[in-house]
Protein backbone atom coordinates (compact mmCIF):
# COMPACT_ATOMS: atom_id res chain seq x y z
CA UNK A 1 0.00 0.00 0.00
CA UNK A 2 1.33 3.44 -0.82
CA UNK A 3 0.12 7.00 -0.88
CA UNK A 4 -0.98 8.28 -4.23
CA UNK A 5 1.76 10.60 -5.39
CA UNK A 6 -0.31 12.30 -7.98
CA UNK A 7 -0.25 16.03 -7.45
CA UNK A 8 -3.94 16.48 -8.07
CA UNK A 9 -4.82 13.96 -5.41
CA UNK A 10 -2.58 15.80 -3.00
CA UNK A 11 -4.36 19.02 -3.89
CA UNK A 12 -7.69 17.34 -3.31
CA UNK A 13 -6.51 16.14 0.07
CA UNK A 14 -5.34 19.63 0.94
CA UNK A 15 -8.67 21.02 -0.10
CA UNK A 16 -10.38 18.47 2.10
CA UNK A 17 -8.20 19.43 5.00
CA UNK A 18 -7.96 23.20 4.67
CA UNK A 19 -10.83 24.19 2.38
CA UNK A 20 -13.20 24.71 5.27
CA UNK A 21 -10.67 26.93 7.02
CA UNK A 22 -10.14 29.07 3.94
CA UNK A 23 -13.85 29.42 3.25
CA UNK A 24 -14.62 30.27 6.88
CA UNK A 25 -11.90 32.89 7.04
CA UNK A 26 -12.87 34.47 3.74
CA UNK A 27 -16.48 34.52 4.82
CA UNK A 28 -15.55 36.15 8.09
CA UNK A 29 -13.57 38.90 6.37
CA UNK A 30 -15.82 39.45 3.39
CA UNK A 31 -19.18 38.74 4.98
CA UNK A 32 -20.35 37.40 1.66
CA UNK A 33 -20.77 33.71 0.82
CA UNK A 34 -20.28 34.03 -2.92
CA UNK A 35 -17.16 36.15 -2.61
CA UNK A 36 -15.82 33.78 0.03
CA UNK A 37 -16.21 30.87 -2.38
CA UNK A 38 -14.45 32.86 -5.04
CA UNK A 39 -11.57 33.55 -2.72
CA UNK A 40 -11.46 29.89 -1.69
CA UNK A 41 -11.07 28.88 -5.32
CA UNK A 42 -8.38 31.46 -5.91
CA UNK A 43 -6.42 30.33 -2.88
CA UNK A 44 -6.35 26.75 -4.12
CA UNK A 45 -5.48 27.92 -7.60
CA UNK A 46 -2.53 29.72 -6.07
CA UNK A 47 -1.64 26.45 -4.41
CA UNK A 48 -1.65 24.69 -7.77
CA UNK A 49 1.30 26.84 -8.73
CA UNK A 50 3.26 25.47 -5.81
CA UNK A 51 3.50 21.92 -7.04
CA UNK A 52 6.96 21.36 -5.65
CA UNK A 53 6.09 22.44 -2.15
CA UNK A 54 2.62 21.10 -1.57
CA UNK A 55 3.79 19.39 1.57
CA UNK A 56 5.05 22.64 3.05
CA UNK A 57 1.75 24.46 3.29
CA UNK A 58 0.13 24.77 6.68
CA UNK A 59 -2.47 26.76 8.56
CA UNK A 60 -0.25 29.86 8.52
CA UNK A 61 0.15 29.73 4.75
CA UNK A 62 -3.60 29.49 4.23
CA UNK A 63 -4.23 32.33 6.68
CA UNK A 64 -1.73 34.59 4.94
CA UNK A 65 -2.89 33.86 1.42
CA UNK A 66 -6.58 34.04 2.26
CA UNK A 67 -6.16 37.32 4.10
CA UNK A 68 -4.19 38.80 1.21
CA UNK A 69 -6.78 37.68 -1.32
CA UNK A 70 -9.58 39.18 0.74
CA UNK A 71 -7.80 42.47 1.23
CA UNK A 72 -6.89 42.68 -2.45
CA UNK A 73 -10.44 41.91 -3.44
CA UNK A 74 -11.75 44.61 -1.17
CA UNK A 75 -9.14 47.12 -2.24
CA UNK A 76 -9.96 46.46 -5.88
CA UNK A 77 -13.62 46.89 -5.28
CA UNK A 78 -13.21 49.80 -2.91
CA UNK A 79 -15.20 47.93 -0.33
CA UNK A 80 -13.05 48.30 2.71
CA UNK A 81 -15.97 49.64 4.60
CA UNK A 82 -17.81 46.38 3.98
CA UNK A 83 -15.02 44.46 5.65
CA UNK A 84 -15.09 46.00 9.06
CA UNK A 85 -18.06 48.25 9.01
CA UNK A 86 -19.80 46.58 11.89
CA UNK A 87 -16.82 45.97 14.11
CA UNK A 88 -16.43 48.37 16.96
CA UNK A 89 -13.16 50.12 17.54
CA UNK A 90 -10.93 48.35 20.05
CA UNK A 91 -9.40 51.67 20.94
CA UNK A 92 -12.56 53.40 21.91
CA UNK A 93 -15.57 51.08 21.91
CA UNK A 94 -18.03 53.91 21.82
CA UNK A 95 -16.37 55.47 18.77
CA UNK A 96 -16.94 54.85 15.09
CA UNK A 97 -16.53 51.38 13.53
CA UNK A 98 -13.05 50.08 12.99
CA UNK A 99 -13.77 49.87 9.27
CA UNK A 100 -14.12 53.60 9.13
CA UNK A 101 -10.82 54.03 10.90
CA UNK A 102 -9.01 51.61 8.59
CA UNK A 103 -9.78 53.79 5.65
CA UNK A 104 -6.88 55.92 6.64
CA UNK A 105 -4.58 53.13 7.70
CA UNK A 106 -1.64 52.47 5.37
CA UNK A 107 -1.94 49.16 3.48
CA UNK A 108 1.13 47.75 5.17
CA UNK A 109 -0.55 48.13 8.54
CA UNK A 110 -3.97 46.86 7.53
CA UNK A 111 -2.98 43.22 7.67
CA UNK A 112 -1.51 43.79 11.08
CA UNK A 113 -4.66 45.59 12.20
CA UNK A 114 -6.76 42.66 11.02
CA UNK A 115 -4.70 40.10 12.88
CA UNK A 116 -4.46 42.18 16.03
CA UNK A 117 -7.93 43.63 16.33
CA UNK A 118 -10.19 41.35 14.30
CA UNK A 119 -8.45 38.00 14.74
CA UNK A 120 -7.37 38.92 18.26
CA UNK A 121 -4.07 37.20 17.81
CA UNK A 122 -1.26 37.63 20.27
CA UNK A 123 1.91 39.39 19.22
CA UNK A 124 3.65 36.03 19.28
CA UNK A 125 1.09 34.54 16.90
CA UNK A 126 1.27 37.49 14.54
CA UNK A 127 5.05 37.30 14.49
CA UNK A 128 4.86 33.60 13.73
CA UNK A 129 2.27 34.09 11.01
CA UNK A 130 4.00 36.98 9.27
CA UNK A 131 7.47 35.55 9.68
CA UNK A 132 8.86 38.56 11.53
CA UNK A 133 10.22 39.03 15.02
CA UNK A 134 7.95 39.74 17.94
CA UNK A 135 9.85 42.98 18.46
CA UNK A 136 8.91 44.05 14.93
CA UNK A 137 5.28 43.24 15.57
CA UNK A 138 5.36 45.20 18.81
CA UNK A 139 6.86 48.17 17.03
CA UNK A 140 4.36 48.05 14.20
CA UNK A 141 1.46 47.77 16.61
CA UNK A 142 2.76 50.92 18.28
CA UNK A 143 2.80 52.57 14.84
CA UNK A 144 -0.71 51.33 14.20
CA UNK A 145 -1.98 52.74 17.45
CA UNK A 146 -0.45 56.11 16.65
CA UNK A 147 -2.12 56.05 13.24
CA UNK A 148 -5.46 55.16 14.78
CA UNK A 149 -5.10 57.79 17.47
CA UNK A 150 -4.20 60.40 14.88
CA UNK A 151 -7.15 59.47 12.72
CA UNK A 152 -9.36 59.92 15.74
CA UNK A 153 -7.87 63.09 17.06
CA UNK A 154 -9.65 66.36 16.42
CA UNK A 155 -6.35 68.15 16.65
CA UNK A 156 -3.32 66.17 15.46
CA UNK A 157 -0.69 65.75 18.13
CA UNK A 158 3.02 66.26 17.68
CA UNK A 159 3.43 62.51 17.04
CA UNK A 160 0.90 62.68 14.24
CA UNK A 161 2.56 65.66 12.68
CA UNK A 162 5.99 64.09 12.83
CA UNK A 163 4.64 60.88 11.32
CA UNK A 164 3.02 62.89 8.56
CA UNK A 165 6.37 64.36 7.68
CA UNK A 166 7.94 60.90 7.24
Amino acid sequence: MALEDDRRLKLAALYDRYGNLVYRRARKLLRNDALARDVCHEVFLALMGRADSLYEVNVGWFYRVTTNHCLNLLRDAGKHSMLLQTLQSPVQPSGPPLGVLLRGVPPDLQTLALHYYVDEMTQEEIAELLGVSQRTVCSRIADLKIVLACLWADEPSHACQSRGKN
Partner: protein
Amino acid sequence: MTADSSTRRSCPSEYLLDRYTQGELTDDSRAIFVAKHLQGCEGCAAFVRQARVPAPAWEVVKPLRPAGARRATALSLLAVAAVVGLLFVPTPTPVRDALPFSSVQNVRRKASGLHLDVLVKGGTKPVERLLEGDELAAGDRLRFEVSSPAPGFVGVIGIDGTGTVSALAPPKGWLYALTTSDKILLPDAVVLDNAAGAESLLLFLCEERQEIETLTVALRRNLDVAPFGCRTTRVNFNKRVGL
Protein backbone atom coordinates in the same frame (compact mmCIF):
# COMPACT_ATOMS: atom_id res chain seq x y z
CA MET B 1 -13.18 33.33 20.14
CA THR B 2 -15.15 36.47 20.27
CA ALA B 3 -14.78 39.85 18.67
CA ASP B 4 -15.91 41.55 21.83
CA SER B 5 -12.97 43.60 22.96
CA SER B 6 -14.01 43.23 26.58
CA THR B 7 -13.19 39.53 26.43
CA ARG B 8 -10.06 39.81 24.30
CA ARG B 9 -7.46 37.15 25.04
CA SER B 10 -9.84 35.16 27.25
CA CYS B 11 -10.00 32.48 24.54
CA PRO B 12 -7.36 31.25 22.10
CA SER B 13 -7.47 32.95 18.72
CA GLU B 14 -9.04 31.12 15.80
CA TYR B 15 -5.56 30.87 14.32
CA LEU B 16 -4.32 29.00 17.38
CA LEU B 17 -7.38 26.76 17.42
CA ASP B 18 -6.92 26.00 13.73
CA ARG B 19 -3.28 25.11 14.28
CA TYR B 20 -4.29 22.90 17.19
CA THR B 21 -6.97 21.20 15.11
CA GLN B 22 -4.48 20.46 12.35
CA GLY B 23 -1.92 19.14 14.82
CA GLU B 24 0.54 21.89 13.97
CA LEU B 25 1.29 23.19 17.44
CA THR B 26 4.91 22.30 17.98
CA ASP B 27 4.95 24.08 21.31
CA ASP B 28 3.67 21.64 23.92
CA SER B 29 2.68 24.36 26.38
CA ARG B 30 0.36 25.94 23.83
CA ALA B 31 -1.14 22.58 22.86
CA ILE B 32 -1.81 21.82 26.50
CA PHE B 33 -3.25 25.29 27.06
CA VAL B 34 -5.68 24.84 24.18
CA ALA B 35 -6.61 21.30 25.22
CA LYS B 36 -7.41 22.46 28.75
CA HIS B 37 -9.30 25.47 27.49
CA LEU B 38 -11.46 23.31 25.23
CA GLN B 39 -12.60 21.28 28.21
CA GLY B 40 -14.17 24.34 29.78
CA CYS B 41 -15.23 26.43 26.82
CA GLU B 42 -18.12 25.12 24.77
CA GLY B 43 -17.70 27.93 22.23
CA CYS B 44 -14.15 26.99 21.35
CA ALA B 45 -14.93 23.27 21.50
CA ALA B 46 -17.74 23.84 19.00
CA PHE B 47 -15.34 25.81 16.82
CA VAL B 48 -12.85 22.93 16.81
CA ARG B 49 -15.58 20.42 16.01
CA GLN B 50 -16.70 22.56 13.12
CA ALA B 51 -13.13 23.07 11.95
CA ARG B 52 -12.76 19.32 11.57
CA VAL B 53 -15.59 19.10 9.08
CA PRO B 54 -14.19 18.43 5.61
CA ALA B 55 -14.50 21.21 3.07
CA PRO B 56 -17.70 21.49 1.09
CA ALA B 57 -17.67 20.21 -2.48
CA TRP B 58 -19.46 22.91 -4.40
CA GLU B 59 -21.15 21.67 -7.49
CA VAL B 60 -22.07 24.98 -9.04
CA VAL B 61 -19.58 27.77 -9.36
CA LYS B 62 -20.33 31.01 -11.11
CA PRO B 63 -17.96 33.80 -12.04
CA LEU B 64 -18.13 36.75 -9.71
CA ARG B 65 -15.64 39.01 -11.41
CA PRO B 66 -16.32 41.99 -13.66
CA ALA B 67 -16.77 41.19 -17.35
CA GLY B 68 -13.14 42.01 -18.15
CA ALA B 69 -11.92 39.30 -15.85
CA ARG B 70 -14.43 36.64 -16.80
CA ARG B 71 -12.28 34.73 -19.26
CA ALA B 72 -9.44 34.27 -16.83
CA THR B 73 -11.87 33.44 -14.05
CA ALA B 74 -13.65 30.88 -16.18
CA LEU B 75 -10.37 29.14 -16.93
CA SER B 76 -9.52 29.25 -13.27
CA LEU B 77 -12.85 27.74 -12.35
CA LEU B 78 -12.31 24.93 -14.82
CA ALA B 79 -9.02 24.16 -13.13
CA VAL B 80 -10.61 24.29 -9.71
CA ALA B 81 -13.45 22.11 -10.90
CA ALA B 82 -10.85 19.55 -11.94
CA VAL B 83 -9.51 19.58 -8.41
CA VAL B 84 -12.87 19.67 -6.69
CA GLY B 85 -14.04 16.87 -8.95
CA LEU B 86 -11.50 14.66 -7.27
CA LEU B 87 -12.93 15.30 -3.88
CA PHE B 88 -14.10 12.26 -2.14
CA VAL B 89 -17.45 13.02 -0.62
CA PRO B 90 -18.50 10.13 1.61
CA THR B 91 -22.04 9.15 0.82
CA PRO B 92 -22.55 5.67 2.27
CA THR B 93 -24.77 3.45 0.20
CA PRO B 94 -28.20 2.48 1.46
CA VAL B 95 -27.29 -1.20 1.18
CA ARG B 96 -24.34 -1.06 3.55
CA ASP B 97 -26.03 1.43 5.83
CA ALA B 98 -28.95 -0.92 6.12
CA LEU B 99 -26.68 -3.30 8.01
CA PRO B 100 -26.82 -2.99 11.78
CA PHE B 101 -23.97 -0.63 12.53
CA SER B 102 -22.99 -2.65 15.54
CA SER B 103 -22.25 -5.58 13.28
CA VAL B 104 -19.64 -3.48 11.56
CA GLN B 105 -18.11 -2.23 14.75
CA ASN B 106 -18.03 -5.46 16.69
CA VAL B 107 -15.45 -7.06 14.49
CA ARG B 108 -12.95 -4.31 15.11
CA ARG B 109 -13.35 -3.57 18.76
CA LYS B 110 -9.96 -4.69 19.89
CA ALA B 111 -9.20 -1.63 21.99
CA SER B 112 -12.15 -0.78 24.18
CA GLY B 113 -14.30 1.84 22.54
CA LEU B 114 -11.73 2.74 19.92
CA HIS B 115 -13.23 2.47 16.46
CA LEU B 116 -11.94 2.69 12.95
CA ASP B 117 -14.42 2.75 10.10
CA VAL B 118 -13.02 2.71 6.60
CA LEU B 119 -14.95 4.35 3.77
CA VAL B 120 -14.16 2.88 0.37
CA LYS B 121 -14.70 4.51 -3.01
CA GLY B 122 -13.99 2.22 -5.92
CA GLY B 123 -14.19 3.57 -9.48
CA THR B 124 -17.69 4.72 -10.23
CA LYS B 125 -19.19 2.71 -7.39
CA PRO B 126 -20.71 4.55 -4.46
CA VAL B 127 -18.92 4.88 -1.17
CA GLU B 128 -19.13 1.81 1.06
CA ARG B 129 -18.04 0.99 4.56
CA LEU B 130 -15.34 -1.64 4.69
CA LEU B 131 -16.20 -4.80 6.59
CA GLU B 132 -13.62 -7.03 8.20
CA GLY B 133 -12.14 -9.36 5.56
CA ASP B 134 -13.64 -7.48 2.60
CA GLU B 135 -11.87 -7.64 -0.71
CA LEU B 136 -10.69 -4.38 -2.24
CA ALA B 137 -9.05 -3.56 -5.54
CA ALA B 138 -6.00 -1.58 -6.56
CA GLY B 139 -7.07 2.00 -7.18
CA ASP B 140 -9.79 2.01 -4.52
CA ARG B 141 -9.73 5.16 -2.42
CA LEU B 142 -10.01 4.97 1.34
CA ARG B 143 -10.91 7.47 4.01
CA PHE B 144 -10.98 6.92 7.73
CA GLU B 145 -13.64 7.69 10.29
CA VAL B 146 -12.54 7.32 13.88
CA SER B 147 -14.05 7.60 17.31
CA SER B 148 -12.56 7.17 20.71
CA PRO B 149 -13.87 6.98 24.25
CA ALA B 150 -11.10 9.27 25.44
CA PRO B 151 -9.30 12.30 24.05
CA GLY B 152 -5.88 11.75 22.58
CA PHE B 153 -3.98 11.82 19.35
CA VAL B 154 -4.87 9.53 16.45
CA GLY B 155 -3.32 8.29 13.25
CA VAL B 156 -3.80 5.46 10.76
CA ILE B 157 -1.00 3.24 9.51
CA GLY B 158 -1.16 0.57 6.82
CA ILE B 159 0.74 -2.70 6.70
CA ASP B 160 0.69 -4.55 3.39
CA GLY B 161 1.21 -8.20 2.64
CA THR B 162 4.96 -7.84 2.50
CA GLY B 163 5.07 -6.20 5.93
CA THR B 164 5.70 -2.72 4.55
CA VAL B 165 4.56 -0.07 7.01
CA SER B 166 3.12 3.17 5.61
CA ALA B 167 1.82 6.24 7.37
CA LEU B 168 -1.57 7.02 5.89
CA ALA B 169 -3.34 9.60 8.01
CA PRO B 170 -1.63 11.89 8.47
CA PRO B 171 0.90 10.95 5.78
CA LYS B 172 3.55 12.80 7.79
CA GLY B 173 3.86 15.00 10.83
CA TRP B 174 1.82 15.26 14.01
CA LEU B 175 -1.04 12.94 14.84
CA TYR B 176 -4.51 14.47 14.81
CA ALA B 177 -5.82 15.74 18.13
CA LEU B 178 -9.09 14.12 19.13
CA THR B 179 -11.06 15.90 21.81
CA THR B 180 -14.45 14.34 21.48
CA SER B 181 -16.02 10.92 21.32
CA ASP B 182 -17.93 11.95 18.20
CA LYS B 183 -17.02 10.27 14.96
CA ILE B 184 -14.34 12.24 13.14
CA LEU B 185 -13.59 11.87 9.45
CA LEU B 186 -9.86 12.28 9.01
CA PRO B 187 -8.93 14.62 6.16
CA ASP B 188 -6.57 12.32 4.29
CA ALA B 189 -7.51 9.97 1.46
CA VAL B 190 -5.30 7.16 0.23
CA VAL B 191 -5.32 5.12 -2.95
CA LEU B 192 -4.51 1.43 -2.89
CA ASP B 193 -1.52 0.44 -4.97
CA ASN B 194 -1.31 -2.69 -7.11
CA ALA B 195 0.40 -5.04 -4.66
CA ALA B 196 -2.02 -7.89 -4.07
CA GLY B 197 -2.50 -9.70 -0.79
CA ALA B 198 -3.72 -9.34 2.76
CA GLU B 199 -3.38 -5.90 4.31
CA SER B 200 -4.15 -4.27 7.62
CA LEU B 201 -5.13 -0.80 8.69
CA LEU B 202 -4.19 0.16 12.21
CA LEU B 203 -5.73 3.04 14.09
CA PHE B 204 -3.60 4.36 16.93
CA LEU B 205 -4.80 6.42 19.88
CA CYS B 206 -1.88 7.88 21.80
CA GLU B 207 -1.88 9.73 25.08
CA GLU B 208 0.97 11.99 24.06
CA ARG B 209 1.17 14.14 20.99
CA GLN B 210 3.76 12.76 18.61
CA GLU B 211 4.65 12.48 14.97
CA ILE B 212 3.34 9.53 13.02
CA GLU B 213 6.87 8.72 11.95
CA THR B 214 7.52 7.72 15.57
CA LEU B 215 4.83 5.07 15.25
CA THR B 216 5.95 3.79 11.87
CA VAL B 217 9.52 3.44 13.10
CA ALA B 218 8.31 1.53 16.17
CA LEU B 219 6.15 -0.74 14.03
CA ARG B 220 8.97 -1.48 11.64
CA ARG B 221 10.93 -2.69 14.62
CA ASN B 222 8.13 -4.81 15.98
CA LEU B 223 4.82 -5.32 14.23
CA ASP B 224 3.22 -7.00 17.21
CA VAL B 225 3.65 -4.40 19.92
CA ALA B 226 1.84 -1.08 20.05
CA PRO B 227 4.18 1.87 20.72
CA PHE B 228 4.32 2.98 24.34
CA GLY B 229 1.33 5.04 25.48
CA CYS B 230 -0.76 4.08 22.44
CA ARG B 231 -3.73 1.83 21.96
CA THR B 232 -4.62 0.35 18.61
CA THR B 233 -7.39 -1.31 16.71
CA ARG B 234 -7.06 -3.08 13.41
CA VAL B 235 -9.10 -3.70 10.26
CA ASN B 236 -7.99 -6.42 7.83
CA PHE B 237 -8.84 -6.79 4.18
CA ASN B 238 -7.64 -8.52 1.03
CA LYS B 239 -6.53 -6.67 -2.03
CA ARG B 240 -6.88 -8.04 -5.51
CA VAL B 241 -5.19 -6.83 -8.64
CA GLY B 242 -6.92 -6.68 -12.01
CA LEU B 243 -10.29 -8.26 -12.51
